[in-house]
């Protein structure tokens, strides 16, 4: 995070310098035309599958069974919203709200808890700090699978198996290592003079944290928030194990329809598309923070 900002002064320095990579030059010499064509084809490869999902979701069953979705280019009249109205009438909305009810609290909790821990790791000296932080770095890559059985047992014992709070807590715990890592690194980049001045003025640690450091970390928190949101919104495995039918998010609701993929396309295609609208809107509106989080957290 910090070096995102640290790198900025270079922007000006390098503006006048040669700005292309060597292969970029070869490419120029070979003729940009070929590159353009190749990249257009590649872009189509990346676009077509999602476009296909959208179009399939907008066609009736009979059309989907008799012809490819690409025929809509010549016969746009076949498009209809019927699949969507049927899906919403069938109770899919409740799984949408479950997704929201899982994702929003998780994101808020992860940010709050990780910010506190990150502050301690960055700005409070305590014995074993460096070692503990290395543990956090190590936990970044621990597979979720390791906790499925033990936590299922634990939840059974406490009676929260299958409930939304159980799912949220699991997500929070596994979101923390990345969040602490990201925020601690950002906090550490804040000039110490700022904190020492505040400490000199007699401000408490909590006050420094909440009124000085946390507000300064908005860009990092935005990155983290988007990442965490998407991560939880898109999760399938945790929901599969810990959410029962009443608490299931969209991903699990859709997954249960996968078994008869052929006959359930009229549910799966619109459902999958609905589930990715909010992530896509978030992604396009805040992609800068998304990329920042990605770059800063890529030790993961």
């Amino acid at each position: 995070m910090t070096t995102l900002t640290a790198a900025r002064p270079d922007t000006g320095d390098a503006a006048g310098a040669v700005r292309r990579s060597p292969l970029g030059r070869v490419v120029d010499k070979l003729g940009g035309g070929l590159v353009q064509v190749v990249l257009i084809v590649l872009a189509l490869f990346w676009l077509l599958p999602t476009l296909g999902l959208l179009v399939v979701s907008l066609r009736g069953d009979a059309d989907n069974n008799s012809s490819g979705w690409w025929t809509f280019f010549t016969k746009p009249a076949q498009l209809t919203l019927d699949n969507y109205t049927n899906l919403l009438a069938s109770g899919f909305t409740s799984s949408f709200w479950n997704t929201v009810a899982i994702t929003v609290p998780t994101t808020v909790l992860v940010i709050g808890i990780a910010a506190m821990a990150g502050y301690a790791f960055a700005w409070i000296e305590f014995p074993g700090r460096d070692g503990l932080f290395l543990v956090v770095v190590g936990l970044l890559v621990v597979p979720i699978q390791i906790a499925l059985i033990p936590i299922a047992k634990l939840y059974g014992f406490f009676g929260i198996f299958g409930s939304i709070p159980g799912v949220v807590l699991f997500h929070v715990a596994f979101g923390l290592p990345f969040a602490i890592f990201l925020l601690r690194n950002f906090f550490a980049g804040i000039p110490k003079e700022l904190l020492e001045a505040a400490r000199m003025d007699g401000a408490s640690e909590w006050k420094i944290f909440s009124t000085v450091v946390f507000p300064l970390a908005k860009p990092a928190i935005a990155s983290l928030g988007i990442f965490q949101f998407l991560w939880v919104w898109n999760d399938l495995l945790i929901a599969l194990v810990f959410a029962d039918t009443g608490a299931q998010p969209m991903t699990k609701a859709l997954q249960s329809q996968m078994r008869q993929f052929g006959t359930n396309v009229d549910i799966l295609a619109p459902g999958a598309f609905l589930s990715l609208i909010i992530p896509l809107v978030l992604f396009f509106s805040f992609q800068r923070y998304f990329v920042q989080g990605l770059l800063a957290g890529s030790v993961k």
Partner: protein
Amino acid sequence: MTDRLDGPQTPRGDGDAVARGASPGPDETPPGAQAPTATHPALADVASGEDGSTSGAPPAVATGQAAGKVAYGASGVLGPSPKIALFFLLPAFVLLGAWVIYPIVYSIWRSLYDAGGGGFVGLENYGAIFSDPSTLTTIRNNLIWVVVAPSLVTVLGLIFAVLTERIRWATAFKLIVFMPMAVSLLASGVIFRLVYEQDPDKGVANAIITSVHDVFASSSGYPGARPRENDQAPVAADQGAVVTKQPAQAGQQVMIPLVGLRPDALPDDAAGAKQASATPGGLAGTVWLDFTPGGGTVNQIDGNERGMPGITVEAVSGGAVKGTTTTAPDGTFQFAGLPEGSYEVRLPQSNFSAQFGGASWLGPALITPAIIGAFIWVWAGFAMVLIAAGLSAIPRDALEAARIDGATEWQVFRRITIPLLSPVLLVVLVTMIINTLKVFDLVFVIAPGSVQPEANVIALEMWRVSFGGGGNQGLGSALAIFLLVLVLPFMAINIRRFRREQS
């Protein structure tokens, strides 16, 4: 490794992280840094459409640097008491302890017990992992994943990053390639189930393949067509092909009656079958559908029997094909310019194979490559963005110096760019290896139930065994521990890299 990319620098990052804060050295603070929302150039690249190939440290690699220099040297003077740290850390520690650390310990213990948890079985569950054919398949598949997918993603990301450096619509391209990362793997799975549909009228992959195939080879197959199986029939089936029983001489009429096809299965242009007019010295004949509903003479062309157009006919002598021709709409064929001699007339197997229907992506043979394709679709954008950030951080003067010394562009790329980029490439590769070890959703969603045993991977098998009907949490725990052990080396790499950046 950051130093190599950055060049030796004074620890800035103090300055512009907090522009309005009391900055230590005023001249360190760049005038442009107004807000803490400053962006890495590579991010601006995606965000703003600038071509943005300015230099700057790749943050992925460098995050630790500023942190280490500031933080670890920072506190102390006025440091608060360590007890306060506990207050800040407690919520995180409780959650990490109960949800991550405790499960690791519990899983190790649980993996030593049987399915129900009652009987101690020692290492038997681990033995089962390495002896059961189905878990061995999952290990083999994970191995394929780890060997193939990360390197493909990294190479593709490098190519994309380099290619997009000089195009105007780089931003649009990057957004398009990057977009799948925001989408759930379940949705990606549904997307690719549609792409991989077997029927070329439904799945776009086979639609593309078959239309490309049809451009190069127009196949009008007659699946099911065959000669009669009796002594009177002049032709017989031979390993899928149809061959004449008697050798044919030049000038002779070759009659090839076939059955096994409904008359309406003939193409529209099929005309009434005719005797071929034999030219002297040439070899000619007729291929026709020798079937008249309600009768007709066997092995003879009856009034309303039609020829079979478009069939490839070969004249074979001594095992070698001496001539090839194709039947006309009335079923006649004619070899021109064959040397004297006797020939066997053969209709090769390709005439009778079913029409090319594309690859069976979701079948047992191709399922893992197909899912890896989807994985690449999802992750190529990640690699591209990280590598693009690394590319933009390479000091231009090093490249210029090499060019002035007479290095070719390829040499510069190979000898300077790639080595300078290697830390970033390593980050991408390691991240992808960890991801492929844990791959679950894509396999679970894309592989149809009947093919899932062929496509199975460790993470999926772990879920299946413990929750998806397997009911064996002892083996499930062992699989989870096995997965953790596989990830451990990469955990160590991450920790080492982080420590190096701190020092």
